[in-house]
């Protein structure tokens, strides 16, 4: 009966009830996952304004962090403040009559936030920090922004409204955290007593060479489950 705790996914129940259909589904699932190598595709989400990432990030080549300005400074990347959209669009006459832009200015005139729907979300017991990932991969390792954001968000240059492209499960996170991402820094001599991770040295051991800045992501439970 333990398995009962794992069910109750309302939106998965619904239409196809009955053991027979489940068998079919599972078989199909297994076959497909073998064929595609555990691919994932999120649901299309209806947004109040169908924001075209393909135009902004793709055609115009705007850096992700120009709009998602909080990503490098905070835990969350944040939806850009409405003022940011208006800042550019008040001077872009060519698209002013487009329905999406008209809608944008309607919100602005009402001074009302646009009620976008969350596409990528994590459970409340997971503390994911955009800041740490951007700082490490973009600023420290100098990788291109579309690659860094793309690790989790995929190629938004090919999307209009954002779609979830990765499962964002713990296993998926850990898979990446176990990879080496060398930062090219030399190791530093530190007091082993101060290093809790990755080696559990005891205080009576002499100071030794450890790479304080580990080259792969942290593996402690508490790093994400605070």
């Amino acid at each position, binding site marked *: *009966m333990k*398995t*009962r705790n*794992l*069910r109750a*996914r309302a*939106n*998965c129940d619904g239409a196809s009830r009955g*053991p027979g259909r*489940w*068998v079919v*589904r*599972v078989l*199909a*699932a*297994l076959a*497909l*996952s073998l064929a*595609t190598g*555990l*691919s*994932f*595709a*999120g*649901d299309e*989400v*209806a947004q109040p304004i169908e924001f075209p990432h393909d135009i902004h990030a793709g055609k115009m080549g705007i850096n992700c962090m120009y709009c998602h300005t*909080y990503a490098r*400074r*905070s*835990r*969350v990347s*944040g*939806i*850009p*403040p*409405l*003022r940011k959209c208006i800042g550019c669009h008040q001077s872009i006459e060519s698209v002013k009559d487009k329905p999406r832009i008209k809608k944008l200015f309607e919100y*602005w005139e009402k*001074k*009302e*936030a*646009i*009620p*976008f*729907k*969350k*596409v*990528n*979300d*994590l*459970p409340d017991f997971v503390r994911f920090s955009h800041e740490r990932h951007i700082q490490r991969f973009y600023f420290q390792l100098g990788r291109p922004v579309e690659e860094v954001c793309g690790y989790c968000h995929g190629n938004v240059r090919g999307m209009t409204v954002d*779609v*979830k492209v990765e*499962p*964002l*499960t713990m296993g998926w996170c850990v898979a990446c955290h176990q990879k080496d991402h060398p930062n090219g820094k030399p190791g530093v001599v530190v007091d082993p007593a101060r290093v809790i991770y990755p080696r559990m040295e005891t205080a009576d051991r002499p100071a030794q060479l450890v790479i304080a800045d580990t080259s792969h992501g942290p593996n402690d439970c508490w790093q994400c489950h605070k």
Partner: protein
Amino acid sequence: MKNVQRRDFLRVLGWGGASASVGACGFTSIDSGVETVKSYVEPEDFNIPGIAVYYASTCTQCEALCGVVGRVRDGRVLKLEGNPVSGINQGKLCGLGQASVQHHYNPDRLRAPLMRQDGGLKPVSWTDAMATLLDKSAATKDGRFAFLTGPVSGHLKVLVRNATESLGSNQHFTYDPLSTRVNRAAADQLFGAESPRLLLDQAHLIVSFGADFLDTWVSPVHFAGQYARFRRASDSKPRGVLVQIEPRMTLTGANADRWIAIRPGSEGVLALGLANALLTGKSAASVAVPPAIATAAAAFDKTRVAAETGVSEEVFDRLVRLLRERAPSVVLSGPSAEGHVHGSSNAQAILALNWVLGNVGKTVLLPPKLPFPQIAPESGDTASLQQFTAGLAAGKFDTVFLHDVNPVYSAPAFLKYKEIFPKAGFKVVFAQYLDETAREADLVLPVDSALEDWGTHLPAYQPEGLELTLQQPLMERLYPDGTRSVGDVLLELLKRRRPEEYKGFADYYAYLRAALLRNRSAFVDAPGDDEQFWTEALSKGVLRVNAQEQHVPAKAANVELDFAGATQAADAQYPFRLAPAVRASLRDGRNANLPWMQETPDTLTTIVWDSWAEVHPATAKRLGIVDGDILEVASASGSLKVQAYVFPGIHPDVIGVPLGQGHESMGRYADGRGANPFRILDPVFDRKTGELAMYATRVRVTKTGARGHVVKDEGWKSGNLKTQAGRKLVVTVAADKAKLSEEV
């Protein structure tokens, strides 16, 4: 059954090996497109989603009015911390203060005004509610309006007074069920200030007659900080010694080096006995002591004191020796000494010891003189509720407003408040919950939580200088269309009644800002322009007032002692005294709907979510009472049923029942829990001030035969390791085995 299990198994299998074809289910527990994420429209630069900012405000959970800073992230207040700028709490905050976020996010908050229609309270719009309020107020004849509030200070007090006056009345009553009026009156007479400044940290000895200054008395967070320094030995002073004298042990008593269980009401006798012993051999001219004290004290020798107080001669001698050797000291008087028919005399005799010992001017100082009497704290008392009730009974009031009080719950049964309340024609109650009083009202106006409201406060106890504390919203209203600030409602009333004076103020915020800016010169360090002053004031949360220092008088004013009734013959019918103990968590019951406070174990008994009656082990043995017996505690005025807790920290003739529980209508966490000892208090009053004598009620205790289960973390029972998983996590030693220091 088998079928179900199989299906479950298949489902899990399906999600475990999930792929795109199963509709993207099973990968995470969070789906796309379910929750809404709103951005800021025009944020301030420092507003970054995910990163908290801190705003200064004032904690209004008790009279201490500590400064707080609230941690606010993504527009939600998350946690309060002490404001380091505040001289009162200096960056610290107690559990009750922390719990004020639960008043704010409480699920039982009122979200729409309620009006009595066809006998029941029905939700109405604010527009209708305000229209009714204004019409009914306008129709009230001169002198037939009254306003009952809790303790109030600052600009809200000005608005309350002016609103009352604008309705042609001067009937503003300030009610505090846990009033310290007796203490304040005695201090005023002896030292010339109601709340003298106490330098506990400078003292070498504190003798406290029931003043629970670490937990519930006056300004507990401030005193706890002082106490820590008092206890720390330094080059200039030894480790301080604390002696607590009270019939029922408080947290301060539990921290004391010596705790003395005294016969309730005889505290003044002990104080006079001490004065007598200390004055012996000294010429009257050499000490500045009120003559009446010196005269009265002469009659109280050691033997008489021991007989009347139950404090042994040996303990008395030790106490005298301590007082002689450890100067300067502080002698405090608290509610258990003051809650008697001769409470004022007790307080005066106790506080006069500070004159006898030469503490006045050393550890007992005067606060500066307040330049603005109109915003001075109105600390409230119980006598004002009696006057208000008398007015209601006489049919003097057509319209009454009640704010920050719950007299239907906290008035003793003998006042018959609930029965008399309907005599007022139109009853408006400003409330956060539909509490016992709001339930009886004709119009209930839901007010903002303390974390949504503006305000200024002037703490009655001022530890350094003179601080005016600012209260500002830590977040937007949770129910923007549901609740309003009391200040805004009163201002709207005043705009109608006195348009010339008030039409310039858009709202309560504008009124406060204008009032403070107009008096800028009254504050210390107010440089720059108005905008800079205001921004700085809000970011600090505290304004220091330029005030004239006051010096203690050289000689004490005389007092009139009246100990008639101090020693009463035993009452065969009601042999025990009731000690209605104040808990730091629930206080007068207004915090009973905070689950954190219900869940916080009582400081000494560790009982949670309930009421109990503390019974001395000897008394329990005599009456055959064990933990969990349901007792009937009955006074001449009423009775209540409550579970017994055998507790050694209480005088054998006293039954302690904590205040705060026994709500009928306060919210889901409070209702139907425990018993309310306010109800069974006897009509006994302090002779001088007319205050309700809280500790004078006589009760009898009978076993009902029913049994309850005392839910607690850990008892006093030393060596009982049952709840410590068999491991000696906290090692305890019985009090009689501990080596008390020789001198204490």
